[in-house]
């Protein structure tokens, strides 16, 4: 659950502000140029302290997923699909897979970001299957 002040957070406020306007952002290191997630004080690849948020195309692949039938709190409506998505710019995040029946989600599935309201109505960056034409054969490196 998200407190209402998420856009004010020191390290992650910019990420959430992006989500609020429908834009997916990721930290990119100013020293090694690599993306990472979750946002943290220094780059986990090179310990560089200078990094900034840059837009992500929001295209990814399902690395793993689990269908949650027993939510940790009643505010979440089960079942829902929790997933690790590897995003094309070389970072990954915990997210939901939406717009897809739970029994059709597969490891390796091509997905794209889709902003959906969470239990407190604030938007979250979930992922949905890519339309066949856009996703077929495309590698997320």
């Amino acid at each position, binding site marked *: *659950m*998200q407190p209402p002040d*998420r856009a004010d*957070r020191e390290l*992650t406020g910019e990420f959430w502000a992006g989500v609020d306007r429908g834009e997916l952002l990721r930290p990119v290191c100013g020293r090694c140029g690599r993306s990472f*997630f*979750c946002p943290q004080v220094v780059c986990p690849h090179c310990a560089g302290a200078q990094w900034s948020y840059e837009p992500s195309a929001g295209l990814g692949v399902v*690395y*793993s*997923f*689990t*269908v*949650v*039938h*027993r*939510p*940790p*709190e*009643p*505010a*979440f409506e089960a079942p*829902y699909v*929790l*997933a*690790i998505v590897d995003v094309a710019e070389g970072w*990954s*995040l*915990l*997210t*939901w897979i939406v717009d897809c029946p739970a029994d059709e989600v597969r*490891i390796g599935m091509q997905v794209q970001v889709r902003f959906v309201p*969470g*239990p407190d109505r604030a938007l*979250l960056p979930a992922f949905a299957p890519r339309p066949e034409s856009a996703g077929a054969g495309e590698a997320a490196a």
Partner: protein
Amino acid sequence: MSAAGRRCPLAGIAVAGVAATRQARRLEVGSVEICLEAARAALDDAGMSLDEVDGISAPWPGPGGAVFHPGSADWTAVFGKGFDWVGDTYPQGAPGLLDAAGAILAGQARTVLVFGGRASGAASAGSPSGGGAKSVVAYTRPDNEFVSCWGSLTAAQFALVAQVYFHRFAPDPERVALVAATIRNAGSANPAAVMHGRGPYRPADVLASPPVAEPFRLLDLCLATEGAAAMVVTSLERARDCPSAPAVILGGGSEWYRQQYVDPPRYDDAARIGAAAFRRSFAMAGLVPGDVDVFELYDICTFEVVRQFETLGFCAEGEGADYLAEAGIGADGRHPTNTDGGLMAYSHVGWGGPTLKIVEAVRQIRGTAGPGQVPGTEVALVTGAGSGAQYHNAALLGADR
């Protein structure tokens, strides 16, 4: 000097006393009270008084902290005495044991009391437990902002690892379920277990239980119950004068890959977590995994038991369920595992859960473990956490030979 004593400095340190309080779905007392109960019982078991304790490892208000989060206390005030050494090792179990041993070996303390656990006091409020619409216990709900917003829970974090394993290796579901059924049947036989008298369980019962976070069903997963556990760690020399036979620390090690429940755990990073800690532990002890008589493994879920046997090197990656079905993990099997019913059927009490593993290991070595006793146990392996938590730890305990 014993043969073990020549192997590594840890072998000069022993567990002289252990205790587990009553374990239940809900207790009528709070966390501090149940922890105190465990601490006093462990001292009694060691035949010691508090006067002799000069080191203490317990839930404090956090490093440098001044806020008493639930379950923490100023233990100097609680016991009315200062200590020469304090620790707040998280989790307890193997790391708590090894930190205490390190303090003693470094001359910072002579006898360390380690304890932890949790209780809500909810039993006295008359509230029904386990209702479907309620929240799960707080320590199973990671509060990181990129985890909690998605409605993840610790079981789901482990499921994200297990799902890749199941996808790649397609283990026989019946054989995976047999792991849970066997551990749960050990719990059925243990009068102290929360799930005492339940069952008997067959793999089909596990596979028919309601799904929680795929591939896990309810009976694949550990409990979240209440109670506490404690141990008294001291020199082997001192422990030899205690009423019960000492359990000597033969080796141990920890492995921290990532802070738990922040970045999501990936199978490719987490699959072999524990291998290095096992390697160091067995090297210290001069033993190999085949020398272990009882395995008190951290059984958050069935998959973790399978994964740990693979990581120990008993079989190849992906073959664990087949291997264990053939070898057997019951009291009469080749690898008796979680002889008290484990976290799945005995109890799991948060911070103190890993110490329950040591309580059972010590009792096995003493020969006083109850219905799950494996005759002639000389070497016990205890472990903590696992792939979904992105850290792992191990300790080998043995008879004083």
